[in-house]
């Protein structure tokens, strides 16, 4: 039953004495848009209630109506928090040794990619569109030395700052 034991690391597979410098995830707009949509959908039955409450037959069905409404809210609440979970577990961790990309695809379905700082050859930032400029989010592409492998992190907030942080750490590491 190891799943119930406490983890001593601040993230999965953290090396001993490894220092976490930065943890970032997609811009908040990626989380807030579905949540606002869910909130809008949650209010629809309440608006229906406002239009039917004066009907003569409403009192007969009111208890059933509200029980179904609370069930509906429970389903929406659970789906919203599934999205919250996916949002928070899809992240990029920058440590004093490496850059780690965590992909959570669903329950118990996780993928992790990492790149050591001294293998980073080039980092480029791409900010495309007026919304991205206004909210300051963009894509970061990291090219590693010796391989054709590229790390592409999409829709990260403050991409220039993240790039600077990684470059500074790379300079320090050697």
């Amino acid at each position, binding site marked *: 039953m190891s*799943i119930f034991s406490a*983890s001593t690391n*601040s*993230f*999965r597979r953290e090396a001993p004495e490894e220092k*976490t410098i930065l*943890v970032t995830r997609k811009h908040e707009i990626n989380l807030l848009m579905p949540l606002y949509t869910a909130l809008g959908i949650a209010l629809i039955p309440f608006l229906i209630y406002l239009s039917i409450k004066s009907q003569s*037959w409403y009192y*007969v*069905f009111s*208890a*059933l109506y*509200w*029980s179904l409404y*609370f*069930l509906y*809210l*429970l389903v929406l*609440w*659970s789906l919203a*928090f*599934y999205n*919250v*979970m996916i949002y*928070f*577990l899809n*992240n990029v*961790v920058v440590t004093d040794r490496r850059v780690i990309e965590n992909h*959570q695809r669903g*329950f*118990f379905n*996780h993928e992790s990619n990492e790149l050591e700082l001294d293998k980073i050859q080039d980092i480029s930032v791409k900010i495309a569109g007026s919304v991205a400029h206004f909210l300051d989010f963009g894509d970061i592409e990291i090219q590693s030395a010796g391989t054709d492998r590229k790390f592409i992190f999409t829709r990260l907030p403050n991409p220039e700052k993240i790039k600077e942080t990684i470059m500074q750490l790379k300079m320090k590491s050697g």
Partner: protein
Amino acid sequence: MFNFFPLLFAIILIAYAWYSFSIIYHLIRFGIGKHPKVLALVFFFGSFLLFALFLFSYNRVDWKQMLEFLFHS
């Protein structure tokens, strides 16, 4: 005669409990920092409250009155 609905309710309840546990487990175990842990707590209390409200309002449903209204109106 075998009543199918309590069994169906139990299956849905177990599936929902597993789903909720998985969300809380992932947020607490794999979330980095304080925010995911706080959100797991918010999810737990919100789910508990909504489930309690559902059960409370469902218990107040007068099926007899509803059926009478439907078939005698």
